[in-house]
């Protein structure tokens, strides 16, 4: 057991433990940060949604974007898997199809950071996946 001997120790400890709570803290403020939902039904998983999600998590960290990733049920576009829904605060949610690592880079770098439109948006007839 390391003792906390100074304020600097305490701060270092706080940094160290913070990542443990990151998931919860993001959940608490999810409306204020980027939300990415990954369709992860059989079709999504078969098309590589799991690997994609992991890749995007690393990407977000590398770009220092605070984002919360959640998996969701089949979005109904099985032929376009993997599909993801991206909700940036203040913008309407968008659903992208055929997302691979390259497309994910584009979405993060162009759409999320610069609000530039990116190819591959699936027009949806509903506003959000679930209320």
């Amino acid at each position, binding site marked *: *057991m*390391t*003792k*906390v*001997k*100074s*304020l600097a*120790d*305490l*701060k270092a*400890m*706080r940094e160290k*433990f*913070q990542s*443990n*709570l990151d*998931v*919860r803290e*993001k*959940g*608490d403020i*999810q*409306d204020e940060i980027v939300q990415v939902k990954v*369709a*992860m*039904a059989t079709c999504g998983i078969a098309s590589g949604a799991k690997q994609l999600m992991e890749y995007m998590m690393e990407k977000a960290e590398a770009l220092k974007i605070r984002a*919360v*990733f*959640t*998996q*969701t*049920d089949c979005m109904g576009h099985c032929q376009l898997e993997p599909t993801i829904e991206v909700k940036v605060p203040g913008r309407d949610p968008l659903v992208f199809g055929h997302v691979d690592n390259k497309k994910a880079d584009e979405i993060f770098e162009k759409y999320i950071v610069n609000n530039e439109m990116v190819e591959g948006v699936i027009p949806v007839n509903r506003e959000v996946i*679930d*209320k």
Partner: protein
Amino acid sequence: MHVLVCGGTGCKASQSHEIVENLKSALVENGLQDEVQVITTGCFGFCEKGPIVKMMPDNTFYTQVKPEDARTIVEEHIIKGRKVTNLLYTDPETNEHVSDSKHMGFYKKQVRIALRNCGFIDPENIEEFISRDGYAALGKCLTELKPEDVIQEIKLSGLRGRGGGGFPTGLKWEIASKNHADQKYVVCNADEGDPGAFMDRSIMEGDPHTIVEAMAICGYAIGATKGLVYIRAEYPLAIERLQIAIKQAREYGLLGTNILGSGFDFDIELRYGAGAFVCGEETALIHSMEGKRGEPTFKPPFPAVSGYLGKPTNVNNVETFANIPVIINRGADWFNKIGTEKSKGTKVFALAGQINNVGLIEVPMGITLREVIYEIGGGIKDGKEFKAVQTGGPSGGCLTTKHLDTPIDYDNLIAAGSMMGSGGMVVMDETSCMVSIAKFYLEFTCEESCGKCSPCRIGNKRLCEMLTKISKGNGTMEDLYELRNLAAVIKDTALCGLGQTSPNPVLSTLDNFWDEYVEHVVDKKCRAGVCKSLMRYEIDQSKCVGCTACARNCPVNAIKGEKKMPHTIDTEVCIKCGACIERCKFGAISIK
């Protein structure tokens, strides 16, 4: 992914422990134990719909989860990403499922300061507390602030004692700091005794380190090195979690000698109370800790001058302490923008009684009763009519419909004939009889009176006898006037806070429900149908078919009648137990 499961006393009683076990084993079966963490937290506050399971980061809020639902949550929500709709909260107005707690009426208006970590962190894990800025306020005080700066900050924040009295906390600390002695003490009053109140218990169960940190800050500010928590033995879970917190803090060097290299020493011990209401009064509490009888003594001398073992002692309530670290971290200016002019910050209330959302809430001072009862509380159970809300426990009073739009703060509640108290809020509907309510609280004070001074010991007994007489139908108008006189005398002459406030339930019900009292003594009627002696059971001769079900089940044979002929009740013999009403399939028996 994190799964938070409520481990407060309420949810624990509804098997939340089994839910945790089942979740963990279902995760292991699916090989997900490394990806998904299951965390037992403190109270979420929404006790009405407990046990609560919250999924993070998607913030899905599952209610009334049973141990057997754990597997479904793992298989559906975690593996397939589908929400388990039948466990979601259903909005009573729109009848729609609400998955995110932020969109629930119960949470919308709440501002959580004292409860900031309850239902968010694992109370038995100091690391989680530290990563939520835990002990940062203590660190700031010890390294950047002088004791007088700390006191100044608390004074500026406008924080007032949350135990009920509302005494300015900063001032209390200042008085204690100015009394010099070789030893001073910091005491945390965790002797929560109001019927229906569980704010302090939930804070200690959900965020015990906050209390440890705040007591150390107080110790630094007033120059004390010893802290004592006076907690009732009826709170075993809170005791256990506090003990764990103290042990962890010692291991991390956050309690003990030379904390954070500052040269400041502080340690905390627990003292157990046997659950006497009067021991919430600070002088009685101190005597109880000294091993003496839990009896109050006259103030002055105040504990700040001569308290525990005759040394200067600062006593604060649990919830007061829970606000301290936030004030230090975020500054007095941030804190004193919340609330009303004279009551700053927030207050935790325990909602109980005939209300849809029973639970624990934290709201900014100045919110109205209407918002609390109808928006957060979800209105009255079974669509009944609101009648009164009792605040302040046995020392408080009943507020009625005319007070619904009064902003809640210390001064407004006193002006309305009640008081803030520690934060119990018992909501009553039309089926509550106000005479019986006053009697209930008087019986409580009679039992809890320590007996030291006669106004409280004898006066309350007489009040209680008069109320019993009225509820039995033997009261007269003179009794009503005498009630008021005697109540005023007790208020003026009793020794301590318990006695001085004990007549409040009588006075406030007399003020607000005079008609109901008059009905009891003049018309010999109890409109709520609570006072048994004033009730009469009657069989509607046109509805009774003579099935004899009532007669066979009457324990005192008060019902007579031939088979297949309408029966009658002998009201002289009837003990009004209600067994006949339950048995009658034809709705022929009614209470008049």
